[in-house]
């Protein structure tokens, strides 16, 4: 929309897509404002993608840059895969929000500020030397200076509300303005306000008044650009809902457990950005979910291993620092050949790093982060919604192949959300367990099925299958402790082979595009949206670039090599220092595998990717 949304008189312009970013103090309710805008747009039929961007501190001092919370959403009449590179409209509730979010605003775009907040104290707190509304900081933007605070106050006069409550409604005023700007109905948000403040009618009334006041104010003033229409997208028919990556992960795990008639046991220790999976699962104990908030990450994974040993689906969820603590126990699950799902919601590192920022730098620890030869299956979800599918698949593979499976998501997927045409659980692939059997009346815990090499899962409580397992090397078949040299070699190779054979049970990767074999863009995990958008836009511009995106990291899909062989140049794009590229190089040493990496705690921008690919196409 870059060319069309300019300063002008009221009129209605149709746009393909638009990016809106809300930014304010942590206490200003920006996450809520953004969600409401998204939900209303989804109901209207837009496709969309969202990305919340908030600080590590709970509530850093008001008015400081550190305390700013943002929410970005891209809506469109075309397929939307990312929350957008740069905001066409930035709403900044105070100077600090402006300061830290200006970098995300498109030059030539619109910035709406709460004029009342630009007083000296706030300007200084934000780190501006002079008032940015008065110097040339914003020369390249169309700035709308709306006295949001005072107008909200006026609108709410007469209600029995204290000043704090009144000021908390100003986000609704801003939202009202945006609803006018994009020609949206206030209805859904009004319904939401009513239900949220059921018990405090004055607050309900206040918020509704603020919302309407904003709408009417926008209609009245001249400073705003024309009203825009983003027509509904052409979206597959069906029933949709919004879903975030963390919720989708939780539900996918539940679906798998329900499908196979097991309880879902989650052992977890809170950590950003994974905690919401724990929170979500804690709400569904009626569906056979057991959640244990463990004393630490080690207890979390160990309790999950115990639950799996006892015959349920054991799962543990965490992020980098917590994953680092689980390595020893995951190794036990490798050795004991017990199903286990480990969800790693990746965040910026190393160490505590940037807890609320996204990153994709845990491939190494997922694949290699255990002592000795300790192979595990590694998957990666690539959109908020498909966290459901890959969480389900992680559970399915773990149980069918009797192995730990590590599912990588990331902060971007976890907190981002998108409309989702959700499936019926019956449409998900069935889960077929390897049953524990006896040979000549004896149960051998390490007897394997010929295809998968999975051992039978005999569960305590089953008469006649009493057996002992553990972390020491074991004799093939019997599972007894064995230090025999050749048996050890055989077992190490068998465990590796078992994981390799998972490749026989996963889909091939598919290439998007039909290039001339010049350039293949490779992605994995949460960068799908940006990569797909960039490649698609280049393909529309007739550039010869193809794209594959990996959800199966270890083992790789079986056709990977065949596909790679077709290309002169392969560029692996990831939010790390090139971990997947390195892994691919070690597996396919004779191919020209390049790496494009970014390590800023932020997703790829479509524009930057396009530039990179065009550069690669040159030579």
């Amino acid at each position: 929309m870059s060319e069309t949304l300019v300063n002008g008189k009221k009129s209605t312009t149709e746009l393909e897509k638009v990016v809106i970013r809300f930014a304010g103090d942590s206490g200003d309710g920006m996450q809520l404002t953004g969600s409401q805008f998204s939900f209303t747009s989804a109901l209207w039929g837009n496709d969309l993608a969202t990305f919340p961007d908030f600080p590590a501190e709970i509530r850093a001092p008001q008015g400081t840059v550190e305390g700013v919370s943002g929410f970005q959403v891209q809506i469109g009449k075309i397929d939307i895969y990312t929350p957008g590179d740069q905001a066409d409209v930035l709403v900044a509730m105070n100077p600090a929000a402006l300061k830290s979010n200006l970098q995300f605003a498109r030059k030539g775009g619109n910035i709406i500020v709460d004029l009342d907040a630009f007083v000296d104290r706030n300007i200084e707190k934000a780190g501006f030397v002079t008032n940015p509304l008065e110097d040339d900081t914003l020369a390249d933007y169309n700035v709308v200076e709306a006295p949001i605070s005072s107008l909200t106050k006026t609108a709410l006069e007469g209600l029995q509300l204290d000043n704090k409550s009144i000021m908390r409604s100003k986000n609704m005023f801003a939202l009202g303005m945006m609803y006018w700007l994009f020609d949206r109905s206030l209805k859904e948000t009004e319904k939401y306000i009513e239900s949220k403040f059921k018990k405090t009618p004055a607050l309900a009334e206040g918020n509704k008044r603020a919302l309407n006041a904003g709408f009417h104010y926008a209609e009245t003033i001249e400073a705003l650009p024309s009203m825009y229409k983003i027509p509904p997208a052409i979206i597959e028919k069906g029933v949709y809902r919004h879903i975030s990556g963390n919720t989708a992960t939780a539900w996918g795990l539940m679906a798998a457990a329900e499908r196979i008639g097991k309880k879902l046991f989650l052992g977890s220790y809170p950590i950003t950005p994974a905690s919401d999976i724990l929170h979500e699962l804690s709400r569904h104990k009626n569906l056979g979910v057991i959640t244990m908030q463990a004393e630490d990450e080690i207890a979390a994974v160990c309790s999950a291993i115990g639950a799996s040993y006892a015959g349920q689906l054991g799962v543990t969820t965490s992020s980098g620092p917590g994953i680092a603590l689980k390595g020893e126990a995951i190794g036990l699950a490798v050795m004991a050949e017990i199903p286990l799902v480990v969800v790693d919601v990746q965040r910026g590192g190393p160490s505590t790093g940037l807890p609320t920022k996204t990153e994709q730098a845990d491939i190494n620890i997922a694949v290699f982060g255990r002592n000795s030869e300790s192979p595990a299956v590694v998957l990666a979800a690539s959109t908020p919604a498909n966290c459901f599918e890959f969480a389900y698949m992680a559970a399915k593979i773990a149980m069918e192949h009797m192995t730990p499976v590590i599912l990588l998501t990331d902060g971007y997927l976890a907190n981002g959300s998108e409309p989702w045409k959700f499936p019926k659980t019956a449409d998900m692939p069935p889960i077929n367990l390897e049953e524990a059997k006896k040979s000549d009346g004896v149960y051998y815990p390490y007897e394997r099925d010929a295809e998968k090499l999975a051992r039978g899962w005999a569960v305590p409580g089953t008469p006649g299958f009493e057996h002992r397992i553990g972390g020491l090397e074991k004799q093939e078949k019997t599972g007894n402790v064995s230090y025999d040299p050749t048996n050890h070699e055989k077992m190490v190779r068998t465990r590796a082979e078992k994981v390799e054979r998972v490749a026989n049970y996963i889909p091939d990767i598919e290439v998007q595009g039909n290039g001339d074999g010049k350039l293949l863009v490779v992605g994995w995990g949460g960068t799908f949206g940006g990569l797909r958008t960039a490649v698609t836009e280049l393909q529309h511009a007739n550039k010869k670039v193809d794209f594959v995106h990996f959800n199966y990291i270890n083992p790789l899909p079986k056709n990977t090599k065949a596909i790679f062989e077709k290309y002169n140049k392969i560029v692996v794009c990831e939010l790390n220092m090139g971990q997947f590229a390195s892994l691919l190089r070690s597996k396919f040493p004779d191919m020209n595998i390049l790496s494009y990496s970014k390590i800023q705690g932020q997703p790829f921008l479509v524009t930057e990717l396009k530039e990179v690919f065009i550069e690669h196409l040159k030579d």
Partner: protein
Amino acid sequence: MEALADVPKAYTKKDFESDQLVRWCPGCGDYSILSAMTNALPQLGIPRENFVFVSGIGCAARFPYYMNTYGFHTIHGRGPAVATGVKLANPKLSVWEIQGDGDALAIGGNHFIHALRRNIDINILLFNNEIYGLTKGQYSPTSPTGLVTKSTPYGSVERPFHAAELVIGAQGTFYARTIDTNPKLMTEIFVHAAKHVGTSLVEVLQNCVIFNDDAHAGVTAKQNRDDFQLHVKHGQPLLFGKDNKKGIRLNGLKLEVVTLGENGITEKDILVHDAHNEDPALHLMLARMAPPHFPMALGVIREVRAKTYDEAIAEEREKITENAKYHSVDDLLKSGETWEIK
């Protein structure tokens, strides 16, 4: 303890012995503990397939291999966490968790105290030989100050934990102490622990013949038995010594050893053991008694009933399920805000 309900066939000791070669050192105290356990289990009326023995790593932790039940030899110190997962996954199981003092109180200290706090209905056996056996003789968190070991060639400079005090400090509901030289008492206490609903912590003073021989001889040696063992029983006076002529009296806030018949002392002066008292102060005092000035208390020192973690979770699930508005993942997927594109 649902598992207690359906009474299966009568088992014998043999039914609980696995076919694996027992690999402890000759003379190790672990042998008699194993034997007491295979004596105890047939008394419980629990089907064999419902027993699970979980352990970490250490000499003690090899225990599950020798039991013909379900068994899981996990990783060092994490047994209580694994056992908690097992119990929550299937509350019908009778879960036993075997730990050495290093496993339980060094690397596993956190899981140990949290299991006790949550009061998950499992039985933890702490084989306390005051040494790391399997790694060939380093001091442990229960080793006395001054002990010369591989890692303390000049004697340990650390102050030890006392298991009982840590158990009480961690809100434990059941603490019993026994010794590897008294098979009868061990069997009795294992049965008692199994019947306690909640985390049962049984400390077994165990002898490591190789690296810390006679560590408990001050209490267990024949010549010390009478004077330095006090077998406590709920509701019984705290008497000990040859012919039970000595007893424990409370003097203000202090315990003291008295002799029946001396200075007009009669049985009425002797403290009667109340294992069921919620207030742990006296249990703490009893558990702290040690030679040379006091006998050591053996038997069930503390046994109070509190809701277990597994009970609480089951209750919660029932309550939630009663009021639930959805009954399947499909319901859940459809719940909340959805919209249809037509």
